[in-house]
């Protein structure tokens, strides 16, 4: 049994040593044996071997293969695509725990990593990977395995058309504002699949309550951003950010920004709307039966959705990447994104939970009325030529 941290480090180093020692001894003969069999040129094999040691040659090789930093593959997978979003999501999880702890006058994660627990997400990852994947006996197996993958797919597909700066984007579209909201409209489906497949009566009730909540706040979310569309005249996110060069849209569309913010809190099931997660008869809502990496994938999907919604708020209301020219535009975007993420996390520390009927009444009655008033204000402003 591994008893101490030093032993663990020793074992990892031993594994690494043997791997580094043996892998060339095994890989090189195989590579050179493939030359006569498949007729690969020896220079190609030499290139691959030098690329594994020399970073500049490796970069050139990767670009030749079409996976370089300006290729679509890189954009989709690394930056500004999935890996970047997952990184922001995991940093958000740690940041949330530390911010809430600081407000409550306590330390958050402290011991993973020398300084204030900054390696806690890695510790969490290893913990989730090490747990057993329990599938309940009466659960619907296909849907049970599908729900976390659907959640992750939903989160990842939202990243496709959102630009991070005039030059950093994966794809451009004339309707790049509508596409993310259309995909977010699928999240009730994910909740329903996860709740139904659990075959747990109480998780199902929790899932139904979550559905009520998500359905109640769809309409205000969509109408509150229509004001921005009216002021700009286009659905393209790039043009919306371009139109905010002189004045951020939060000033003429203040009411819309507040409504959008409240619906973000509800969409992500955060306090004060986190009733599905904290009910009497429901241990953890619709994700009760998910353990280990299933749970990890579900949460990753939710937190990538968090990142996307915060990004949309920044682009729509806070002027996106507009800012003084001494810093690159993407840095301004990330600063504003940080601020919006803090704003979404903070109500968890200062507000209590609402009851279900109060929550739904706010969504259907108050917010729809206010969002229509906001649209009316936007039409008036646009006709007066405020922008």
């Amino acid at each position: 049994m591994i008893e101490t941290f030093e032993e663990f480090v020793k074992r990892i180093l031993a594994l690494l040593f043997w791997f580094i020692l043996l892998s060339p001894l095994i890989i090189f003969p195989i590579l050179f044996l493939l030359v006569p069999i498949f007729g690969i040129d020896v220079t190609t094999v030499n290139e691959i071997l030098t690329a594994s040691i020399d970073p500049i040659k490796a970069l050139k090789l990767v670009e030749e293969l079409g996976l370089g930093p300006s290729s679509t593959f890189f954009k989709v997978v690394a930056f500004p695509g999935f890996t970047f979003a997952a990184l922001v999501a995991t940093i958000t999880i740690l940041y949330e725990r530390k911010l809430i702890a600081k407000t409550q006058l306590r330390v958050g994660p402290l011991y993973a990593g020398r300084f204030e627990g900054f390696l806690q997400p890695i510790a969490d990852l290893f913990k989730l990977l090490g747990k057993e994947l329990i599938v309940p006996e009466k659960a619907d197996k296909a849907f049970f395995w599908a729900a976390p993958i659907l959640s992750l797919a939903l989160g990842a597909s939202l990243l496709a058309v959102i630009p991070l700066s005039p030059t950093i984007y994966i794809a451009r579209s004339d309707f790049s504002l509508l596409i993310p909201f259309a995909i977010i409209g699928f999240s009730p489906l994910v909740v329903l699949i996860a709740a139904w497949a659990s075959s747990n009566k109480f998780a199902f009730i929790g899932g139904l309550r979550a559905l009520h909540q998500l359905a109640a706040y769809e309409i205000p979310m969509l109408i509150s951003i229509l004001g921005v569309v009216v002021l700009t005249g286009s659905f393209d996110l790039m043009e919306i950010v371009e139109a905010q060069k002189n004045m951020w849209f939060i000033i003429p569309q203040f009411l819309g920004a507040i409504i959008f913010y409240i619906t973000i809190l509800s969409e992500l099931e955060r306090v004060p709307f986190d009733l599905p997660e904290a009910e009497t008869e429901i241990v953890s809502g619709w994700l009760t039966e998910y353990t280990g990496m299933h749970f990890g994938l579900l949460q990753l999907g939710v937190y990538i959705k968090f990142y996307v919604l915060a990004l949309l708020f920044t682009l729509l209301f806070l002027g996106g990447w507009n800012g003084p020219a001494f810093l690159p535009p993407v840095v301004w975007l990330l600063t504003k994104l940080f601020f919006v993420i803090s704003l979404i996390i903070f109500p968890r520390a200062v507000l209590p939970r609402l009851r279900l009927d109060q929550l739904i009444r706010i969504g259907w009655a108050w917010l729809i009325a206010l969002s229509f008033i906001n649209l009316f204000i936007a039409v008036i402003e646009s006709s007066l030529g405020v922008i």
Partner: protein
Amino acid sequence: MNYKLISGILGAFVVGLRNVFKRRMTLKYPEEHLEIESGYTYDAKTETGSPGFKGRHILYTDKCTGCSLCAIACENIADCIDMVKVEGSWPTNPKNIMPQIDYGRCVFCGFCVDACPFDCLFMTPEYELSATDKRKLVHTPFQLAVFPEKKGNVKLIPDDRGAYHD
């Protein structure tokens, strides 16, 4: 949308934000220990004690006479003091018996200290008494005679910057 709603929520946000910049209150045990000044003692002549922490007991074996009053006092409270035979010759202790305390049962009320008429059973500020074996919780008279080491190094200070351990 009345004024009270908006000002209430904004007030809550402002107070939360102000507390983000205060010092954190957590005592980082076991790297930090709270400082405890003294243990509880009792003066048999004036029949009053002096304030102090009620932790592990300390037995002054050179003054104990084996009168068993501590065991009798504890009998109906926690029944954790047993008088056991000790080796050696003790000038003040003709019966050669001294108290042994079972910390699995002790409730740290201190009435045994109040009962001792010879000022030889007091309490010390040591509170880390856990053991992995239940038999190790029974401290013999000679284990009780050892004074604990002083470990405390922080105090809880309420301040303008928040209450913190320093």
